[in-house]
Every structure is written in C-alpha cells, then in structure tokens.
C-alpha cells in the first residue's frame, strides 16, 4: 500500500477566521476514510482544499507525489483524477443527464462523443439509472440526481473520490440507493474520503474514521476504536448527540 494523499500542517484561514488549524492526514491507496465532526468544524473546507476549490493558506498537500499547494501545479489535470460529490449535487442545469456525464470527457478531449456517450450509459447503468440518459436534470429526484452526480464524477476515471455529505440533502428513502452506490465503489477499491453523518455507513465501509473538531483532528482510528472506545471527551460528546437523536 502506498500513500495516496498526505496532508501536512494544513492551515486555512478566511480573513481572520482560522478554519483549519494544522491538519495532518495520510490516506493510503484504496483506503476509505470517513470524516466526522460537528457542523462548522472545517470538514467541508478540508475536503475542498484537497482539490483546491479552496486555496490552502499554509502546509502541504501531496497527492500522488505532487504537492498541490505549489502554485505552479496545473490543478485542472490533478482534478481530473479527483472526483467530487457535493451535498447539493450541483448537476449542470442546462444539460441533460447524459450531457452532464459526457461534458468533461469530451471537453477535455479524452474521448469522442460516441465513446463518451457509451461510457456515460455504462456509468448510468452502474448507478441504476440507465433509462435516464436523455432526461432533463430537473425531472430527477434528489437521490437520482446524486447518483448521476457520482456517475459524472466517475466519468474522468479518477483515483480518488471526495464526498461532502452526499446524503444530507436527501429524503430518507433516497439515502439507501446512494449509499449502495458508494459501497460498491469502495468494494472496487476506490480511494475515498467521505464526510458524512451516516454512522452505519462508516462502521460498515470505513477503513479509518477521523474526528475533526474546531479545525483540528482530535482522534482517528478504526470504526471499532472510534465508535467502541472513543478516548477524546469531545468525540464522546459528539457521538452521544448523534446516536441519541
């Protein structure tokens, strides 16, 4: 196993607000890491700095031996290797389902239209939405949209997938389908960093769980360690709140 992502002393501030206060995190190839933590603790920010949707303030982020904190790095090619799934799906409203998936492969000249559409159909098949290829985005339910978003992220054949609370905006009955797709991905050996409040998913799929609070990693370990034997006071508080709801 090799290091896929290595974050060292990552600091991110917005103005005077220090959101990430020196994060050190390593993710191995094929590893599934679940990040948990209270709202506003910096989970999304951490995830977004990994593909530089946010510019890191200091520290280093090495992905596949490239330090992306370096200004000279072409982020566009790096991003092709990092898929991202957003809480609110962010499907392109001006395009059909198929076009959403095909856009990047075609525009970035990786594939011809024919190849791209063939691949898009395959991807839709894997997320259980084969028949929605020509549908307008607006006609899909939230769960369906999120699965299309996952398919879109996979279209560039990334090595790493980032998920930022992919099921938080979904009606409960839709959550299962999306988690199924994610579990399948994990089984296929995708390196995944997932921010989620779905503890069941974490327990079942995660190789490691990371607890973030106030911009710092306070504790990390196997699901068993984190959920069975939490050491940190705040982690215990957090788990109590979540599990007792």
């Amino acid at each position, binding site marked *: 196993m090799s290091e896929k992502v290595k974050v060292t002393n990552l600091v991110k501030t917005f103005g005077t607000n220090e959101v990430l206060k020196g994060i050190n995190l390593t993710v191995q190839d094929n590893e599934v890491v679940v990040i948990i933590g209270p709202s506003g603790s910096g989970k999304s920010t951490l995830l977004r700095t990994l593909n530089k949707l946010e510019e890191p303030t200091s520290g280093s982020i090495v992905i596949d031996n490239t330090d992306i904190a370096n200004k000279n790095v072409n982020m566009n090619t790096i991003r092709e290797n990092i*898929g991202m799934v957003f809480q609110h799906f962010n499907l392109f409203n001006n395009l059909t389902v198929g076009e959403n998936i095909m856009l990047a492969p075609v525009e970035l000249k990786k594939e011809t239209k024919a190849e791209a559409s063939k691949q898009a159909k395959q991807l839709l098949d894997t997320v259980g939405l084969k028949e929605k290829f020509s549908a307008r985005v607006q006609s899909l339910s939230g769960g369906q949209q999120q699965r299309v978003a996952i398919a879109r992220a996979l279209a560039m054949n990334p090595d790493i997938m980032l998920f930022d609370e992919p099921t938080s905006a979904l009606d409960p009955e839709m959550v299962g389908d999306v988690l199924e797709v994610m579990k399948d991905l994990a089984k296929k050996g995708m390196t995944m960093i997932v921010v989620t409040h779905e503890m069941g998913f974490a327990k079942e799929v995660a190789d490691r769980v990371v607890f973030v609070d106030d911009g710092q990693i306070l504790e990390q370990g196997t699901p068993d360690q984190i959920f069975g034997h939490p050491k940190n006071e705040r982690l215990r508080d957090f788990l109590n709140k979540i599990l007792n709801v």
Partner: protein
Amino acid sequence: MKHRLSKPLRWVIFGVAFLMCLIFSNTAQAKTYQIGTDVTYPPFEFANKHNQYVGIDIDIMNAIAKEEGFKVHIKPVGFNAAVQAVQSGQEDGVIAGMTITPDRQAKFDFGTPYYKTGVVMAVAKNSRISSFKQLKGKRVALKTGTAAADYANSIKKKYSFKTVTFDDSDNMYQDVTTGNSVACFEDQPVMQYGIKQGLKLKIVSKPANTGWYGFAVKKGTNRALISKFNAGLKKIKANGTYDRIVGKYLGSKTNQAVKGKTFTIGTDVTFPPFEFANKHNKYVGIDMDLIRSIANEQGFKVKIKPLGFNAAVQAVESGQIDGVIAGMSITNARKKQFDFSDPYYTSGVVMAVANNGKVKSLSQLRGKKVAVKTGTAGADYANSLKKKYGFTVTTFDDSNNMYQDVVTGNSAACFEDQPVMQYAIKQGTKLKIATKPAESAPYGFAVKRGQNQALLSAFNNGLKDLKASGTYDDIKAKYLGTGGSQASVKSTGSSTEDRSFIGLIKQNKGALLSGLQETMWLTVVSIFFATIFGVIVGLLGVVPGKAFNWLSSILIYIFRGMPLLVLALFIYTGIPSLTGEKIPAFVAGVITLTFNEGAYIAAFVKGGIEAVDPGQMEAARSLGLPFGKSMRKVILPQGIRIMIPSFINQFIITLKDTSILSIIGLLELTQTGKIIIARNLEGFKVWTIVALMYLIIITLLTWLSNWVQRRTNV
C-alpha cells in the same frame, strides 16, 4: 479766418453769377440785389469741390429770389467785410450765418429768423466724455471769434477746463481726434455738417446759447427787400424747399412729416446680429440700432415689438403695426404687399473654415464633410451644391454645434449667412470666412404697401444721413467687426405644400425612410459592439482577480453614470480636441452607444452570471474543466437565459437613445424630423409621424424578441 480767393475760384464765382444773370434775365425788370456773404462757413456758405458757391444761406437766398421774382448777386467777401459793406450801403444785404443779437438789431433790420442754432460740445467718437463736468482739468479746443468760443470761455471757470484756440476749424477738430484736446465747441449746424462729412467726432451736449440766424439789411433801408425775403421764406417753408435745402446739408433733422410721432415697428425674436435680446433683455442688433438712430435723426420715436418674423410681417400687413425691420429680404413676391426702403444691408451665404483650415474654395470640398444649420439659407445653398462638389452635409440644430464641428475638424467647412458668421467670429468663434457672399439678398425696412409713406421716406433719408455720417458703419462694426457688408435670406416654407398628414408623409417619405434606416443601422451596429463590450466588461466583473473586478466596476460606473448626451458631445467634440484625430459622426455615435449601452449590458451580464448557483462553477472546476470552459459550457448558457429579457429591453432602449445622437448632427429619424419641421413648422404633425414610426419599429422588435424568448425557454 483767412479770406483768400484763388484765381480760378474768382472765375467760377463770376461764372455762377453770370449764369444766374442769364437764368433770371426773363425777369429783366427786376432789381438785382447785391448780397454779401462769408467766404467759408460751411454748411452755410462754401465752395464745393467744383468750386461752386453753395450752402444753406446761398440756396435759401436763391430760392427766395426765384420765388419772389427778384435777382440776387451773392458775393463771398467775408463776414466782416460783408457786414461793413451793408452798413456803408455798398451792398443791399448780408446772409452769412449771422446771429440776431440786440446789438446788431440796433444797426440792422433782420428778416424772419431762418435758422435756429446753438453751441454744442463734440468729443472723439470713442470718447467716454458726455458732460461738462467730465472736462475738469482737461483741454478743450476752440476756434477764434466764434459764438462757440465765447460760450466755452463763459463756462470755463465753472467747469475748470483749459482751452486752446485755433484759427481754423480743421485744426480744432484735429486736436480733438488726436486726443490732445478732449472736446471742442462749435455751432450745432457746423458741427453736424462736419460729422456728416466724416469727422470722427460725436455731439454729446444739447445746443446751448441758442440763437437765430437772420438776413440783414441796413437799418431803415431796403424794407422792400426784407418783406420780399420774408414772403419768400414763408413760401419755401410751405412747399418743402426749405426742408430740402437744410436736409441736403445737415440731414433732414427736421423731418416735419414724422416729427414727434411714435411708430410701432415689429421685428424677429432672435436673429443675431440683427436683432436679439442682450443680457439686460434689451433688444439690440444692427436692425435695432439702425431704426433707433434713424428715428433719432429724423425726430420720430419708435416702439420695438419683437413679435417674431412671421408675426411681425403679418402685423404690418394687417395694419396693426407701422413697419417691420427684421432682416427681411426684398423679394418681388413681398413687393406686392409691402413698400420697401432702400436696401440697408446686402447679405449672402459665405463658407467658413477653421482658422488653420486649408480649404479655400468649394472645389476643395470634394469627399469632405460640411456642417450646416437647419432651416438656414446656408443649408439650402450647401444642399444645392453638394452633388456638384461632391461633399456630404451634416445638419445641426444649433449654430454653436455647427461651428464646433468645423473648429474640431470633423467638418471641413460650414455655410452661413455672412453677417451671422461674421458676428459669430467677432464673438470669438475660431473660424474664418473663406468665400465671397453668394446668393446675395438685400434687406429692407418695410411698410404696408401704400401706407406710412412719410415713415418710409424718413427711413430712407435717415439711412442716407447715417451712411454719410459714418454712424451706419459704426453700427455694423459694432456687431460684425470691421469690413462687414452683408446679411441673410430668411427661408420660409413654401405655401404650396400640402400640410395634411398624408401630404406631409408623401413629401417627406424619402427623408423619413432614410432617417429610419440610419436609426436602424445605428441601433444594430451599436448594439453589436455594445454587446461585445458589455459581455467583456461583465465577465471582467466575475473572473477571479480583484483588478479585473475593479476595472469592470469602474467602467460600468463611468459609462452608466454619464448622460448619453454629454458622452456623445464629449466623444464627438472632445476626443478630436484631445487627439487631433477626426471622428465621423456615425463612428462617434456608435462609440457613444457602445459605451453607454455596453455599460448597462455589462451590469446585467455580471448580474446574470452572479445569479447562477456558484455550485455549478465548483462542480465544473472539480471535473478539471478550466475556468473559461466552465464559463462557456455551464455558466453562460444559464446566465444568458437570465439576461435575455434585459437584453431585449436594452435593444429597445438603444433604438430610442439613437435619437439623442441628433445632437452631433447624425441624420437619423429624430434629426430628420427636426429638419422637416424647421422648414415647414408643422411640429405637431411631423412629430406625430416620427413618434408612430418609432412605435411601429419597437412593436415589431418586441414581437421578435418575445418569439426569441419563447424559443430559448423551451
């Protein structure tokens, strides 16, 4: 006074006397009276340039003699010699500008006083002195032995001025015109005559020490001659001969026909330099000064009514007012309704170029632009020549914008009535006149045909006098600077035009359609560039990079904040002044609209893009799509949909805003309307037609845009 007669002069006098003997030889029985007079006392007696003895005294004496059937032999022996000769009985009488005084009445019998005189003070034409008080400490010129000198000496102490005395009138006048002395005193008629002959002096005081001139015989003798003189004087006063004689030498100051009367004179509202309200709201100008000076000269009063040209003309026709002076050209058509005075001004159209302009003739205008003002004779003239000389005509509403267009070099020349042009140049416009006046048209003062003949002849007499005295030239110089001589033709619409809506549309169809075409061109070309400009500036507002965002905001702020009119004038007249490069009006118009409409477009482009969910951009970027591609493929398609209603709105606004560009002379629909109205004055009808044309085009555009909008929403 030197009483010296040259030999030829004697011969001439002899000849004149001989001729008179011949003339009066039919009254052979009549006695020939020997009358003495002065040698030189103009205007009463003097030798004219043909060395003939003439003057008021001589002419009156001869006229009376003729009237009464006696003969006279007038001998210019000198004043003192003549007086002594009468006393000694060698001569029968003396007529020599001789004032009737008690002293003289003791020795002479005087006829009925034939001329009233008085002492006046005259100063140099440009002098500010207008009262005796201002003479304090100054030097005054006098002529020895005159009543005027006596008078001046009598007030010398009171006003504490110094005097210098000359033997000769000319030297006295000279002393004042050169500024050595500030004033001179002289008998009114003498002074008046001198001024009429071109002396650069003006009379500034009322006649003082007034007295009467009389014809004198030795006391107790020649009663018969006195009664003949009195009878004859009465007759020549009654039949106008007296007035004619005095008028001949002094200008008909005493025009009995109009004396003391008040006449109402109509004029135009604003026609500089002929009539216009000055900053004190007083009507001034060449026409105004002329009529006032003539009234003054002829002894009548005027009431000026600035009714407007057409109204004034009609008021004269209907007899509501007595005359009209309004830069009115004398035409055969008008002569049917009016009696005109002698032309008092001849105008014509001239071409003016920039001070440093190289165009000197019409043929150098080929391929160039020429500026004119709507509705002027200059515009008509330019339009009649544009084919022949191959230039294009730009029309302005306002003289100033027209001049400016030439000053900045956008146009090579402008055409305007000479006096109007000359006046503008005198007012500081940096142009020069390059051609002689063409299409010359004389101006006249007019009264209703067959009416007010006394006023008309008073005007003609007064005009002659003003011309003779130099006052006329002074008035012209005051408004036109030196060397002026001409004026303009008022263009009034032909009365045969059909003034119904249909008629107006038919007559002006070509002009209106080409105006509409210009409007459409301007709109389409401008909206094209405005869209490019707007999209670029709008995008600068949303790309990452603070500097770009700032630039975008500033550009939007400036061009959205500046009134379109100001921007148009700035670009059209300002840029050429800054860069020295000319801008064609159409290009300036397109630039103006590109910036102004583009700023609005930029604002809604920016707003439209910002209205797209930022998650869309993040998702696109997270896939590895560069910023530009993300914009084009994801953001703009969504943003444009938001922008379309604003864009259509902007298109319509641009179409309407083109009308403002009429200010820089673009011949679009609004300017076309203005020009038509300037000619036919049918404002309401023409504006209705123009408004409907705009509405029709905008309705069509709205339909088109609704259709586009429906299609893009599918």
